C-alpha cells in the first residue's frame, strides 16, 4: 500500500526564470507575431484585423466552453457545435417577433431597438444552460457509472451519437431551411480605422470580451468557480473539501453549453441557423483546444484568436475552401514541436486516455 504520492505537475516558479528567456519560447513568439500582425493589418488591410477580432471572440466563447468540460469533467464533447446550433435557433425564434415589432415602430429611438437583440441572446443562454444541465443528468451521469477506464473516449463516442441525434432531430422538426436575420441592430455601420464596421460586428466583439471577462472573474473569484477548478485539479481532494461533484458537473456542463449557445445567438446575422450550422464552429473550437492544450481554458481563449487569424488570412488570400486545409498543416507543425499544445495541459493523464 505504499504508493508514493503522485508527483504534482510542478509548474515552474516564474520568478526564477529570467525575464527575457521567459518570452523567448515558441508560444510567446507566436503570440507576439500575431499581435504584431493584427496591428500591421489594421493599417494595411483593416478588415482582416476586424474579422480576426470579431470571429476570434466568438471562437473563444466556443473553445473556452469546450476546454472547461474537458478540464473539469474530462468530457471530450463532439456535440459542442450543436449547442451553437441550439443558440442560433432560439435566438431566431425569440428575436424575429421582436424584430417585427421594431420595424412596426418607425418613431426611432425606442428602447426595443437598442435592447431587443439582447432578448434573443439571453434566451439562448438560458436554453443552452438548461440543455447542458439536462444532458449531464440524463446521459453523462449514467455513463459515469458504467465507464471508468475508457471514459474520455467513451464521452467522445457518446457525444458523437448525440450530435447525430441533435442535427437530424433539428432537420426533422425544422427542415433544412436557413433561418437567419439580416442584422440585429438597424443602424448604419460605423467607421473605424478607415473601414466601415457594422454595429453587429462591434456588438459581437464587445459581447465576447465582456463574457470572457465575466467568465474568468467567475472562475477566479467566486466560490463555485474555485470549486470547479478544484474538481479539475483533484476530484478526490474536492470531495474532501465538501464539494458535491454532481452539482459542479451540472453547472460546468450548463455553463459550457450556454457559452456555445451565446456564440450561436450573437453570430445569427453571419451564420443563419440550420441543422449543420454548428459543424464549422465545432471544428474550429476543437482545433483551438488541441492547439492550446486540452483542458486549458485561458490558453483556449488566446488560441481562439490565433486560429481566427489563420482562418481570416486563408479566406482573404487563398480562398474560402482552404480554411480546413492550411490551419491543419499549421497545427500538425505545432504539435510536432509542442505535443501537448502551445500552453500545455494541466489535465492529468490525458496522454494515456
Amino acid at each position, binding site marked *: *500500500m*505504499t*504508493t*508514493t*504520492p*503522485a508527483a*504534482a*505537475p*510542478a*509548474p515552474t*516558479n516564474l520568478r526564477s526564470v529570467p525575464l527575457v528567456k521567459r518570452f523567448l519560447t515558441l508560444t510567446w513568439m507566436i503570440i507576439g507575431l500575431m499581435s504584431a500582425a493584427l496591428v500591421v493589418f489594421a493599417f494595411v488591410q483593416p478588415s482582416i484585423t476586424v474579422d480576426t477580432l470579431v470571429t476570434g471572440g466568438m471562437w473563444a466563447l466556443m473553445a473556452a466552453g469546450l476546454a472547461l468540460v474537458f478540464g473539469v469533467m474530462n468530457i471530450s464533447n463532439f456535440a459542442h457545435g450543436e449547442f451553437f446550433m441550439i443558440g442560433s435557433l432560439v435566438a431566431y425564434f425569440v428575436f424575429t417577433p421582436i424584430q417585427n415589432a421594431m420595424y412596426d415602430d418607425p418613431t426611432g429611438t425606442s428602447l426595443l431597438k437598442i435592447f431587443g437583440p439582447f432578448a434573443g441572446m439571453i434566451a439562448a443562454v438560458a436554453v443552452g444552460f438548461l440543455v447542458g444541465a439536462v444532458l449531464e443528468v440524463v446521459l453523462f451521469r449514467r455513463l459515469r457509472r458504467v465507464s471508468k477506464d475508457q471514459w474520455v473516449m467513451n464521452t467522445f463516442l457518446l457525444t458523437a451519437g448525440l450530435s447525430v441525434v441533435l442535427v437530424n432531430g433539428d432537420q426533422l422538426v425544422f427542415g433544412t431551411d436557413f433561418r437567419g436575420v439580416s442584422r440585429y441592430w438597424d443602424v448604419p455601420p460605423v467607421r473605424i480605422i478607415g473601414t466601415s464596421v457594422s454595429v453587429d460586428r462591434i456588438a459581437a466583439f464587445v459581447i465576447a470580451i465582456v463574457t470572457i471577462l465575466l467568465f474568468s472573474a467567475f472562475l477566479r473569484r467566486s*466560490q463555485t468557480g*474555485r*470549486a470547479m*477548478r*478544484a474538481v479539475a*485539479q*483533484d476530484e*478526490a*481532494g*474536492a*470531495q*474532501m*473539501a*465538501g*464539494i*458535491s*461533484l454532481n452539482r459542479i458537473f451540472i453547472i460546468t456542463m450548463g455553463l459550457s453549453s450556454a457559452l456555445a449557445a451565446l456564440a450561436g445567438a450573437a453570430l445569427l446575422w453571419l451564420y443563419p441557423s440550420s441543422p449543420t450550422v454548428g459543424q464549422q464552429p465545432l471544428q474550429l473550437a476543437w482545433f483551438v483546444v488541441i492547439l492550446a492544450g486540452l483542458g486549458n481554458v485561458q490558453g483556449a481563449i488566446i488560441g481562439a484568436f490565433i486560429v481566427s487569424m489563420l482562418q481570416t488570412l486563408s479566406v482573404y488570400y487563398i480562398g474560402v475552401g482552404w480554411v480546413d486545409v492550411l490551419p491543419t498543416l499549421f497545427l500538425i507543425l505545432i504539435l510536432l514541436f509542442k505535443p501537448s499544445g502551445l500552453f500545455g495541459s*494541466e489535465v492529468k493523464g490525458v496522454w494515456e486516455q
Partner: protein
Amino acid sequence: MLKLTAIEAGYDLLQVLWGVDLHVEEGEFVAILGPNGAGKTTTLRSIAGFVPPIRGSVTFRGKELRGTLPYQISRSGIGFVSESLNLFPAMSIYENLLVGAYSVKDKKAVASTMDTVFELFPRLLERRDQLAGTLSGGERKMLAIGRGLMPRPSLLLVDEPSLGLAPMPTLATFEALKTLRARGMTILLVEQNVNTTLQIVDRAYVLEQGRIVLEGTGAELLGNTHVQEAYLGI
C-alpha cells in the same frame, strides 16, 4: 463519537477489510497501526466514503454514514487528510484553504479559521500565495492538514503524515497534531511509525490482515510482547 461495526470493504475483486470494529470518543487521539497492506488506509477511506463498505455500519454521532457520499461525510464534520494529500497543485496555499472552507458560508468564520491554521503553521502564512504544486513535502502535509481543518471538523482522519518525510518535518507534523489534540480536536491517525505514535496517542488499534487484533492505550501496547516483536523489533 465514531463507531465502526463489522466493516467489510475492498476494491473490485479484492476484499481488504474482514470485519473491523473500532470506536473513537469525543476528544480522543486514537491511532491505527499495522503492517503494509493490512487495510489501515482502506479503513480511513471507507469512513470518509471513498471506499463504500460492503457490509457493516459506520456511525458518526449516532448517524449512519454508510451509503452517503464523500462530500456529505465531509460536511457532517469529518475532515480527511489522505495519504496522497489530494491538494490542488495549480492553486495557491490561500486558495487551497479557501476551497477547504467551501461548505462554510460565513466569511468571518472562514477568516478566523484561516488565522488559526496560519498560527498553527506559520510556514503557510509565509508562502500564502505560492502554488501548492511548488511546495516541499513538509509544507504540503501542513497545507493538507490545514485544508482539512478549514470546515471546522469535529473529527480529523489523518493518513500516514510521516510518509515520505525527513525526521524534522515529521516531528513538526506530530507536534501540530498534539497541539490540535490539546485544543480538543478528536483525531484518528493511521501510522507506520509505531514507537513515536504510541507515545503521543491515548489509545491505539493494531490491524492485521483486515482484522483488529489488538487494542489498548499507548502505554499498554508499548508493553505488549506481540507489538514489541512485530513492530518495535525488541
